[in-house]
């Protein structure tokens, strides 16, 4: 018990020292507040792309040659990658909610019969529009793809159906962000990007600063233990992250009118987990970097793939497989799923379990490296 209070009071000592230093360092302090504001303004604009091979779930209730050829046409168009087929609509809906597919194509029972009778059956495409740039092109081409396929198939006795206004009524449901407002996607994403950028860098710098100024030796010569130093030094920056989160969430609500469909507590759990992941990473960088400059460079080295491959800049499902593999290893990828899922789709914990687990694993891995590398001695 005595050892615990002793340890706590040493953590408190480091914490208070760090707090004072943070307050005195006006430049860094200003940066921590200015970065969220600046980025919010800059990213008010969208980045549009034309992603292909978007994962698509198919919910089919009948399997006729015409249905087959329609699905093949979707596949060969290059926009849709049919990764999953089911006859249970709940299954396909869950995939869309978790963000594992970008589209669900639904073909109801009796589709072929209606088509042959000339009753223009519905060909339903549900799109995950929480990231509009991901789905817009694929959606725009859908009608053309479907009808061209049918023109090809409807020959002979059925040829009279072909030239009409379109034998099939292609219906697109944009889910989660029906008006395709890009800010809805960008602003929640910014939360992750800003936390990554500032927190990894600031913790990295705060630690290497001790080594560079020679005060690390003082710390080590006094009774503070490595874990105590680490906790005491990192804790103030959790506060910084909390302030940044508040700024962005308020801006999302009042400046960009981003809807908030899910539970705030779930989002905040995600934020805390993600904060810890970034701080642990910054600390690890500081055990590798020999100077503040190197810590900064390491941060950017990590930041670049984070911003490009996490699904923030470019739609995740539109990236080549190797890029998605890298993306899976980045905490930002999973955090983006949580923020967008909770804010835009109203996803619950069950939907987000995988993302939480992935960030947890990241913390475990990075934290282990940090503790192994952070030394009690100077060698």
């Amino acid at each position, binding site marked *: 018990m005595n050892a615990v209070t002793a340890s706590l009071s*040493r953590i408190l000592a480091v914490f208070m020292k760090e707090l004072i*230093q943070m307050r005195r360092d006006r430049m860094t302090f200003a940066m921590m507040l200015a970065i969220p504001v600046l980025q919010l303004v800059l990213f008010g604009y969208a980045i549009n792309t034309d992603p292909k091979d978007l994962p698509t779930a198919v919910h089919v209730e009948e399997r006729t040659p015409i249905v087959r050829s329609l699905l093949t046409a979707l596949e060969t168009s290059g926009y849709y990658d049919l990764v999953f087929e089911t006859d249970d609509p709940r299954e396909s809906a869950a995939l869309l909610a978790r963000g594992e597919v970008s589209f669900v194509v639904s073909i109801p029972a009796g589709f072929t019969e209606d088509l042959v009778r000339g009753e223009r059956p519905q060909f339903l495409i549900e799109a995950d529009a929480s990231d509009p740039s991901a789905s817009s092109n694929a959606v725009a081409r859908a009608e053309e793809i479907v009808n061209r396929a049918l023109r090809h198939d409807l020959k002979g006795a059925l040829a009279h159906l072909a030239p009409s206004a379109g034998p099939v009524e292609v219906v697109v449901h944009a889910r989660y962000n029906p008006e395709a407002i890009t800010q809805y996607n960008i602003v929640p994403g910014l939360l992750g990007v800003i936390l990554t950028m500032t927190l990894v860098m600031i913790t990295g710098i705060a630690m290497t600063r001790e080594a560079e100024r020679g005060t690390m030796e003082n710390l080590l010569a006094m009774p503070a233990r490595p874990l105590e130093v680490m906790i005491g030094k990192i804790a103030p920056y959790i506060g910084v992250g909390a302030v940044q989160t508040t700024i962005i969430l308020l801006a999302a609500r009042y400046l960009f009118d981003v809807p908030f469909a899910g539970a705030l507590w779930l989002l905040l759990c995600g934020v805390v987990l993600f904060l810890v992941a970034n701080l642990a990473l910054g600390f690890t960088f500081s055990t590798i970097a020999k100077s503040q400059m190197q810590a900064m460079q390491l941060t950017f080295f990590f930041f670049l793939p984070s911003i490009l491959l996490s699904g923030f800049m470019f739609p995740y499902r539109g990236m080549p497989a190797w890029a998605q593999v890298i993306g899976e290893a980045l905490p930002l990828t999973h955090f983006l799923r949580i923020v967008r899922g909770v804010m835009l789709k109203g996803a619950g914990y069950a939907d987000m379990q995988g993302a939480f687990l992935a960030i947890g694993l990241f913390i475990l891995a990075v934290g282990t490296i940090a503790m192994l590398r952070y030394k009690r001695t*100077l060698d």
Partner: protein
Amino acid sequence: MTARPDLAIDVRGLVKRFDDKTAVDGVDIQMPRGQVWGFLGPNGSGKTTTIRMICGLLRPSAGEGRCLGFDILKESARIKLATGYMTQKSSFWGDLTIRENLEFVARLYQMPRLRRRVDETLETLGLSHRQHQLAGALSGGWKQRLALAAVTMHEPKLLLLDEPTAGVDPQARRDFWDEIHRLSAAGLTVLVSTHYMDEAERCDRIVYLAHGRLVTEGPVAEIIAGSGLVTFRARGAGVRDLAERLRGAPGVEHAAYFGAALHVSGPERSALEQAIDGIGRDGAVWEEVEPSLEDVFITLMARSGGDQRDHG
């Protein structure tokens, strides 16, 4: 190895290798409690590395020892509580005020009556009226006094001071040494590394390192007597260009200026006199003098090859 309670530092065969470089190579130190010892040697000779091993900040590659009776390999946490180590850069936190620095240290050591303790320390330092200034704004001399106060606040039994007076003006250096002797009189054991000969002369004993090895050790007078050196001094208008001509002459181990005078030393009187006669005695007044500690160390340094710091 049996613990000897009379020794503050008792280390044997300390070796420290960094990759392929041996920074400290088999150093033995047996330092009794209550004394003030000087730790000398050229740049890169291994002083800092040895001190770090003594207080448990570096793990020796080989060797063993005790510091204040605690095993340097296994009990570094207890050594840290009982020693005060002023590092070579000895910078406390420049972006904290003087008071905040002391409070931080007091908190880390969990000192009772923290405020009173800090107040008292500020009082003895004579810094009460400047306690809210940033430590980074202090002059070199004051910085060192603050650092000394910070490492003595938890009342350690042993002080390890690594070049505490580097870059400090002569008066501040004197004040600093007066403080060291005050602490020593109060029962502290002090090991000080330094490059200044006048400071070395204020120590009870001297340990001299070169290339990570202990070259000589003992009281100043013994080291001078034991060096077997003969020194001649030249004064006068013409001495300015004599050193160049004497260096490398047979029997001359070193020729160096001490202020306006030239000192020439070597192991043999007759050889030295011959060398001096060789360049002529015009324009300078020559006389034999007692070798100073500096003469001895310059010779030791020359014998061991000067600056030993790795520049790679």
